């Protein structure tokens, strides 16, 4: 009985070992002592962006009821009621010079410079820790609309680049009437 069980399990164990070995080879080795930064990765107008994890207090579903407040620019959707508090809800596309869409996506509750607001994103990609050494300065070739708000570029591979946004700069510009 014991032998039969052993034989039936053996092929599965081999598969598991192979899988573990395969994944170990594929993954980049990260020095655990290296300082990291948490990023919330998302898309706007199909482009990849990130906000520092410390600035994103909460990730909310995109179908929160939004109350429209008249007399505000199109970049302000209105307000949301969140556990007894009222938060503004803005879209970043006008400020970043990107086309807007009706996609409900998700809402990031962002806090920066003493201000908190909901920010609608089109798609949440991931929340991950990246080594600080992998963040590169924003290149000069960035579109002029993006340049004031991009603090770094994260390029995990040659085909993917993510612009790390500066939440303080975004809110400050918004308050000054931009976007």
């Amino acid at each position: 009985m014991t032998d039969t069980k052993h034989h039936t399990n053996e092929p599965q164990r081999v598969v598991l070992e192979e899988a573990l070995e395969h994944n170990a080879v594929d993954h980049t080795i990260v020095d655990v002592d290296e300082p990291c930064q948490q990023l919330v990765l998302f898309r706007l107008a199909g482009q990849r962006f990130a906000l520092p994890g410390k600035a994103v207090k909460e990730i909310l579903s995109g179908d929160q009821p939004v109350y429209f407040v008249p007399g505000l620019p199109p970049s302000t959707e209105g307000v949301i009621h969140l556990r007894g508090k009222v938060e503004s809800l803005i879209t970043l596309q006008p400020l970043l010079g990107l086309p807007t869409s009706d996609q409900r996506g998700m809402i990031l509750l962002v806090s920066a410079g003493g201000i908190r607001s909901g920010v609608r994103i089109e798609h949440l990609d991931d929340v991950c820790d990246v080594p600080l050494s992998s963040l590169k300065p924003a290149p000069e070739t960035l579109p002029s609309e993006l340049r004031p708000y991009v603090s770094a570029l994260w390029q995990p591979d040659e085909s993917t680049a993510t612009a790390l946004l500066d939440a303080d700069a975004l809110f400050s510009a918004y308050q000054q009437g931009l976007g």
Partner: protein
Amino acid sequence: MPINALVDNTSLAPHVALVLFNAGTVRAAIEAHHILSMSDSPTTSRAASADALLLGMRGVPAPTHWLTLQDSNGFWQLGVTGNVVLSRLSTTVLFPLPPLLAARHASPALCGLARHNKTFLLLFDGSMLTPELATQP
């Protein structure tokens, strides 16, 4: 004309007396002590409709009620629509404007929001209202 009174005594929190009305398509409110009376038609030469004065909108239904307020130039009237009610709202449902909204909204008299009947009311500061603002670009 009397303003219908709705009183919420369910909460022990302090209350604020507000006059609720429609301004264009939205529900709005002004602190009750700013409203001196209400009439069916304008009785003063200085008047403005709420949609134009509070929201910068025009062409929505004509006012059905006129609320009398007073500023440094004397009495004036605010034309409103919808059900006009006097309501005491708990301070727990009154919120200041979130900072980003406060920085960008067009009406200087918009001072907050109130959660009421599962939606929001726009709160306007009656002391900052004057009918002449409606004629400014």
